[in-house]
């Protein structure tokens, strides 16, 4: 049961794979080893509704997901900001925004919950998705480092 969970949402298919590819890249970078043992874990998640289970018991949740767009930086969003976006590509009944809103409504999610969006052309072929994640990986790593630092600082204050 790690306090910090970084969860890539998606599937192996094309643009939707960005979240998963990002998690694999962070694993290769040895991200978990950069923090105290047992503090941080990385995982992939397919259906957004599974996030309830995946985030259970954590204190800081970071969701990495593909977002339709061509932004040159990783987008840092609150769950509310994600829900307010109208350009979401998720097509099924319960998307990431709705799943996170539900977790918050139940009061069972981590106190700190952030979405990191990787802007992707929804029609991008797999090679372009990998290239895009590679380009944004330094920014993604910095965002994650900042979020964890903020979480640790807040935890120390309480």
């Amino acid at each position: 049961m790690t306090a910090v969970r970084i969860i890539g949402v998606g599937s192996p298919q094309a643009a939707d794979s960005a979240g998963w590819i990002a998690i694999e890249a962070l694993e290769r970078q040895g991200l978990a080893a950069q923090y105290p043992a047992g503090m941080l874990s990385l995982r992939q998640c397919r259906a957004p509704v599974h996030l309830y289970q995946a985030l259970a018991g954590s204190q800081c949740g970071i969701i990495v997901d593909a977002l339709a767009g061509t932004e040159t930086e990783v987008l840092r969003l609150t769950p509310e900001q994600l829900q307010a976006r109208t350009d979401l590509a998720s097509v099924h009944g319960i998307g990431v925004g709705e799943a996170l809103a539900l977790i918050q409504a139940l009061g069972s999610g981590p106190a700190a919950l952030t979405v990191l969006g990787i802007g992707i052309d929804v029609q991008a072929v797999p090679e372009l998705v990998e290239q895009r994640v590679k380009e944004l990986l330094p920014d993604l790593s910095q965002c994650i480092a900042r979020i964890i630092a903020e979480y640790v600082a807040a935890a120390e204050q309480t």
Partner: protein
Amino acid sequence: MTESKREVRIKVPVLTRVEGEGALDIAIHDQEITELRLRIFEPPRLFEKFLEGRDYQEVPDLVARICGICPVAYQMSAAQALENAFAVEVPAAVHEWRRLFYCGEWLQSHALHIHLLAAPDFLGFNSVTEMAGKYPAEVRRGLRLQALGNDIMELLGARSVHPVGARIGGFHSLPTANKYAPLLQRLRDAHEDARALVLWTAGLPLPDDEQDFCSVALHDRTGYGMYGDRLISSEGLNIAIEEYPQHFSEFQVPYSTALHGGLHGRPYLVGPLARLNLNAARLPRSVQEVIEATGIRFPSRNMFHSIVARAVEVLFAVQEATRILEAAPAVDVPCVEIRPRAAAGSGCTEAPRGILWHRYETQGDGRIRSARIVPPTSQNQARIEQDLRNALQAFGLDRDEPALRLHAETVIRNYDPCISCATHFLRLNIKRSTT
């Protein structure tokens, strides 16, 4: 005095809280529905064509991609069809593990639909997020049951979405007792959740909407079935699954990319309510006692009892999965040897949303010559349109458009349609007119 001419068109451009993309158009003229179209505009997916020329062992992994909610059903219907084609008998123990796999899928799919998609309609909420504010314990229960179903699927399929554990002839591998022991304990703990769920759904303020419809389901001689070799109906049909094409037809309508299904040319119902209407007596006594406690009697002609039927099947799936894991069916090898041949075979299993029929023709080397797949939502589509006409008429066509739209969406969601197999929800367009 002149009577005002009134023509109303209601358009629901995107159906919400369903799986896939659909819309609804309704025209009302002089308090009569003159046009009603459940439009499914997801592009055709052409899976049957993709399968041609592929090796038979690729089929379970390919067809699992048709649906993220019910991949096990696709795998099991395909396996049954190809095993029939190759005259393979799967050992009873392997069949039991398949039942467990299927229990996982029923559990996750039904728990998701009841709590996250359907219940908000009956309790007056726009979404499960709103509902969670007043019913947090019930929503948590739903998510627990759904997670349990997912974990059963993962146990046998290596992952819960698009699992990869099944193969023609059995499984690639089966779990050890150490691996499933924690799951067995969670199943035992879930009995009370499932029982409470049945009683809770029966207590929801469900509309009273009795209709005539024909129920169709598989008949399993040994129990309440996900499997069976015969198809039965409430109107006396009793045929081998191979005879499906002689009785059931699929036809195209101009406004939908999904085919409509007919039994002898008429709409019919598949899914939990149809199963319970035809097979309730085959449920274990302990489940029947809980149904009796609800006060609802099956067969039921109230389509809104579908949510109760789904909850009953959640209870059944929890009990059945517990029974299977407690018996721990022993197998020497997880799959039997296959000798492919040029042949044809049919398979039919009970997906969460109803019967899922497959037929394959193979070449001598086991490659697929042709494939036909009939998913439950396309079979239900004509029935949904028939239900909408009856339900909206009974609801009152003079109601305002938001009320009509909500009721139409509730009727459609009640079927748990999988538009990707055939959700997203409903764009409703209503046009009213008077002479």
